[in-house]
C-alpha cells in the first residue's frame, strides 16, 4: 500500500530523516514510535505530502506520491492532525462536510445526496451526530478530535494517517477510537498509519511497529519484538519494565521511577512487626511488600503492607467468605486493598514463627498448622517474608521450595506418628503468602540448591514441624 524507500530530507535547517525504508500493507494498523525529536512527525508529514523530501521515494498503491494531484491524494489518504486550528466558529457539520471537498467537481461544487449520506454516516460512527449544529470552538478537546476524525473519514480514504490520535482524549475514548480504527482496518480494508507516544497503546492495537531513533529506522516488526525491555530502555534512555498484559498476549511497558531512598538500608521484616493476638495474627509492615499469595484477600501478585491471619470458629461457614473477610478487615481497621488476609480455625497461639539468617540473607517465617479432625481438611498456612529483592522466578521457586519442605515434615510426622499415614494428605486448604521487601541486593533464584532456597527449606521445615507439634499438644491438653 505504502512503500517508502531510502527517504532522506527535512527542514531547511538540516536533515531530519536519513535513509528511511519500510512498507505498510493494506488493511494494516501500523504504529510509528520513537522518542521526542526522532523524526516521527516529519516522516508522517512527508507521507502525507505536506513536506517535500530530498532523496528517496514514497509510493502509494504503486504510484509515486508526487504524481498525485492534491485532490487525488485527498481521496486516497486522509490525515488527522495533532492540533486542529479553528479561527472561526464553524458548526460541526460544516467542518465535517469539508471532508467531501476532494470528491466534488467543478467551480461551483454542488452538494449531492451521496455527500450528505456519507457526512451523516461518519458523524454517526464517531458519535457526534447530536453535536452537529454546535460551533466547534465550544467543544471539548476530545469532541474536537472526533469532529476532525469524522472530517478525515468523510474523505473516504483508503489510508488514514494519524499523529498521536489519543492526545486529548480521556481513557474511555482512547479505547473507543482505537477499537474503531481496528475495526475499520479489518472491515473496510482501511490502512492506518499512526504515531504513538503511548507505547502500551501501540502494543495493544498495532499489527506492526516502526521504532525510530535520530531519524533512522531502528526496527520494523511485531509489538512483541519491537518492545523488548532492553531496546526501549536504550532508545528512550529511561528505566522501564516489560510486563505482559494480564488479559491478552501483548507486551506492556511500565515506568520505574527513581527510588525515593527514604528507607533504611538495613530494614528487615522480623518479629518486631508481628502481633499474635487471641483471634488473629497480624504483621504490619511499615512499607509495601511485593507479595504473591493464595489467601482470601490480596491473592495473586501485588503490593501489600498488612498481613492478617484470622482465626475463626470451627463452625465458620459463609457462602461469600471473600466479602465477609473484607468486611472483617474494614471493621478492624485494615484496608482490604493493602492487606493479605487468610483464615483458619487453628488457634493463634499454636502458630510458630522465627527469623532465619545466613550472612546478609534473612527470612522471617510464620506457620500456623492444624491437622484438625479426620473428616476436616488439613490446614497449614505459611507466611514467608524475604528480606531481599527477588525476581519473579524466585517467587515461584520459593513457593516450590516451601511446599517441598512442608511435605517432608508431614511425611516425617505422619509416617512415624499416626498409623493412618498418607490419608491426612487428602483435601487441603493450605495457603501460602510470599512477601519480599524488594530492597537491597537482587536475588535471582530460590531453588533448593541456592542459599536462599536452603534457608527457606530449613526455615519452613523447622516452623511447620513446631507448629504441628504445638497444635497437637494443645489439642491433647484440650481433650484432657
Amino acid at each position, binding site marked *: 500500500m505504502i512503500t517508502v524507500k531510502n527517504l532522506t530530507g527535512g527542514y531547511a535547517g538540516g536533515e531530519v530523516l536519513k535513509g528511511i525504508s519500510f512498507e505498510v500493507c493494506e488493511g494494516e494498523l501500523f504504529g510509528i514510535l520513537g522518542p521526542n525529536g526522532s523524526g516521527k512527525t516529519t516522516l508522517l508529514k512527508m507521507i502525507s505530502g*505536506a513536506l517535500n523530501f530530498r532523496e528517496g521515494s514514497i509510493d502509494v498503491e504503486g504510484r509515486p506520491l508526487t504524481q498525485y494531484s492534491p485532490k487525488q*491524494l485527498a481521496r486516497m489518504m486522509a490525515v488527522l492532525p495533532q492540533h486542529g486550528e*479553528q479561527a472561526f*466558529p*464553524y458548526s460541526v457539520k*460544516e467542518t465535517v462536510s*469539508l471532508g467531501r471537498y476532494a470528491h466534488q467537481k467543478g467551480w461551483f461544487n454542488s452538494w449531492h445526496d451521496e455527500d450528505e449520506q456519507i457526512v451523516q454516516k461518519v458523524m454517526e460512527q464517531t458519535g457526534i451526530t447530536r453535536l452537529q449544529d454546535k460551533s466547534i470552538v465550544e467543544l471539548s478537546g476530545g469532541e474536537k478530535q472526533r469532529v476532525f476524525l469524522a472530517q478525515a473519514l468523510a*474523505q473516504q480514504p483508503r489510508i488514514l494517517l494519524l499523529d498521536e490520535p489519543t492526545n486529548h482524549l480521556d481513557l474511555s475514548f482512547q479505547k473507543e477510537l482505537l477499537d474503531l480504527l481496528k475495526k475499520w482496518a479489518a472491515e473496510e480494508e482501511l490502512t492506518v498509519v499512526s504515531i504513538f507516544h503511548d507505547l502500551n497503546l501501540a502494543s495493544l492495537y498495532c499489527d506492526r511497529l516502526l521504532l525510530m531513533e535520530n531519524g533512522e529506522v531502528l526496527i520494523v516488526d511485531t509489538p512483541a519484538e519491537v518492545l523488548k525491555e532492553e531496546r526501549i530502555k536504550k532508545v528512550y534512555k529511561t528505566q522501564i519494565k516489560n510486563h505482559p498484559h494480564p488479559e491478552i498476549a501483548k507486551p506492556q511497558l511500565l515506568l520505574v521511577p527513581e527510588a525515593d531512598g527514604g528507607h533504611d538500608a538495613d530494614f528487615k521484616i522480623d518479629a518486631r512487626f508481628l502481633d499474635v493476638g487471641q483471634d488473629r495474627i497480624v504483621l504490619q509492615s511499615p512499607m509495601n511488600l511485593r507479595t504473591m499469595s493464595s489467601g482470601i484477600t490480596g491473592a495473586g501478585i501485588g503490593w501489600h503492607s498488612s498481613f492478617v491471619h484470622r482465626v475463626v470458629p470451627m463452625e465458620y461457614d459463609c457462602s461469600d467468605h471473600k466479602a465477609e473477610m473484607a468486611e472483617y478487615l474494614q471493621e478492624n481497621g485494615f484496608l482490604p486493598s493493602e492487606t493479605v488476609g487468610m483464615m483458619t480455625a487453628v488457634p493463634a497461639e499454636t502458630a510458630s514463627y522465627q527469623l532465619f539468617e545466613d550472612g546478609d540473607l534473612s527470612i522471617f517465617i510464620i506457620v500456623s498448622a492444624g491437622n484438625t479432625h479426620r473428616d476436616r481438611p488439613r490446614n497449614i498456612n505459611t507466611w514467608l517474608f524475604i528480606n531481599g529483592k527477588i525476581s519473579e522466578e524466585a517467587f515461584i521457586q520459593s513457593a516450590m521450595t516451601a511446599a517441598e519442605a512442608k511435605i517432608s515434615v508431614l511425611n516425617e510426622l505422619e509416617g512415624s506418628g499416626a498409623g493412618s499415614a498418607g490419608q491426612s494428605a487428602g483435601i487441603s486448604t493450605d495457603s501460602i503468602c510470599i512477601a519480599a521487601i524488594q530492597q537491597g541486593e537482587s536475588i535471582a533464584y530460590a531453588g533448593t540448591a541456592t542459599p536462599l532456597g536452603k534457608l527457606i527449606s530449613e526455615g519452613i521445615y523447622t516452623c511447620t514441624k513446631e507448629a504441628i507439634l504445638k497444635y497437637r499438644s494443645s489439642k491433647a491438653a484440650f481433650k484432657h
Partner: protein
Amino acid sequence: MQKPFIRTFLNNKGLAYIISTAFLIISMLLGISIGTVSIPVPAIIEIIGAEIFRFQGQGIDSMHESIVMDIRLPRVLLAGLVGASLAIAGAAFQGLLRNPLADPYTLGISSGASIGAVITLFFGISLPLVGAFTLPVLSILFAFATVLFVLFFARRVDRLLRVETIILTGIILSSFLGSFISLMIALSGEELRQIIGWLLGSVSMRGWEYIKIIFPFFIIGLVILLANTRELNAMSFGEERAQHLGVNVERRKLLILLSGSLLTGSAVAVSGTIGFVGLVIPHLTRTVWGPDHRHLLPLSVLIGSGFLILADLVSRTIIAPSELPIGVITALIGAPIFALILMRNRKERSAGQ
C-alpha cells in the same frame, strides 16, 4: 454570541439573503432620495425604470431626472461597488489568514494602492495601452506588490508565517508608505488639492466614468473569489489541513491574494482610502450568519455596499451643505467596532485556555 433561537432564526440562509438584499435596496433608495433636493421614492423608481426600459415616462420632472441619473445614482452605485469590493476582499483575507483582524487596510494593501495612485497623480503618468485606466492599473499593481512584499517579509521573519507577524508587517509597511505619500504631498504644487482630496476618500462628483473603471475589476475579483469559497473554508483550518483535504493551496492562495488585491486596488483607485469597511463588515456578517465562506462572501458584498452607501449619505448630509470625507465616517463607526473585536478575541482566547 447570540441567543440560540436568534441564531437558528437567522441561520436560515434564504432569509439572510432576503434581509441583506432588502438592506441594500433600501440604502440605495435612501441614498438617491435624500439630499438638498428631496426626491420621492416612486419618482426614483419611475426614472430608473424609464432609463432601463427606454420608455418616455409621463410627468417625470426633468430636474429630478438629471439629479438622479447624473449625480446621485452614479454616486450611490460607486459607493456600493467600493463597499462591496472592500468587504469581500476583507472577508477573503480574513479567511485566508485565519484572523478576523486582517483586512486590506491592516495588511498595508490600501496604502500600497494609494502610493500607486498618488504616483500617477503626482507625475501625471499615463501608461500606453491602458490610457484612462492608468490610475486603477497602477493602484492594483502596487496593491499586489505590497501583498507579496508583506508575505515575503513576514516569512523571512517567522517561518511559520503567523498571522500576527503578517499583520504587524502590514502595519509597519503601511506607516512606511504613508510617509512616502506625505513626502510627495510636501513636494507637490498644483496637484496638491487633487492628491489630498483623493486621499481623504470620497465618492462624490465621480460620475459614470469611475463606475466604468471599477466595474470590470469588481466583476473579475468577485467571480474568482466566489469560485474559491470552499477553498477558503478549508484554508481557514490551516494551510496544511487544506492541503490534506485536497486543496491546491499554493495556486488557490495566489488566486485569492491576487483577486483581493485587484478589488482593493480598484476600490482605492476610484475612491481613495476608505478604512474599516473590509474589517468590520465581514466580521459582523460572520457573527450573525456564521463563518461559511460560501455565504459569507456574497452576504458581505450586499451588506458592505449598503453600508458604504449609507456612510456616504451621512457624510454628505450631516453638516450639509459641506461634505465630510467618507473615510471619516467609516473610521468613526469602524474603530470602536475594531476595538470590540479585539477585546472579544482576547476574552475568547483566555477563556479557551
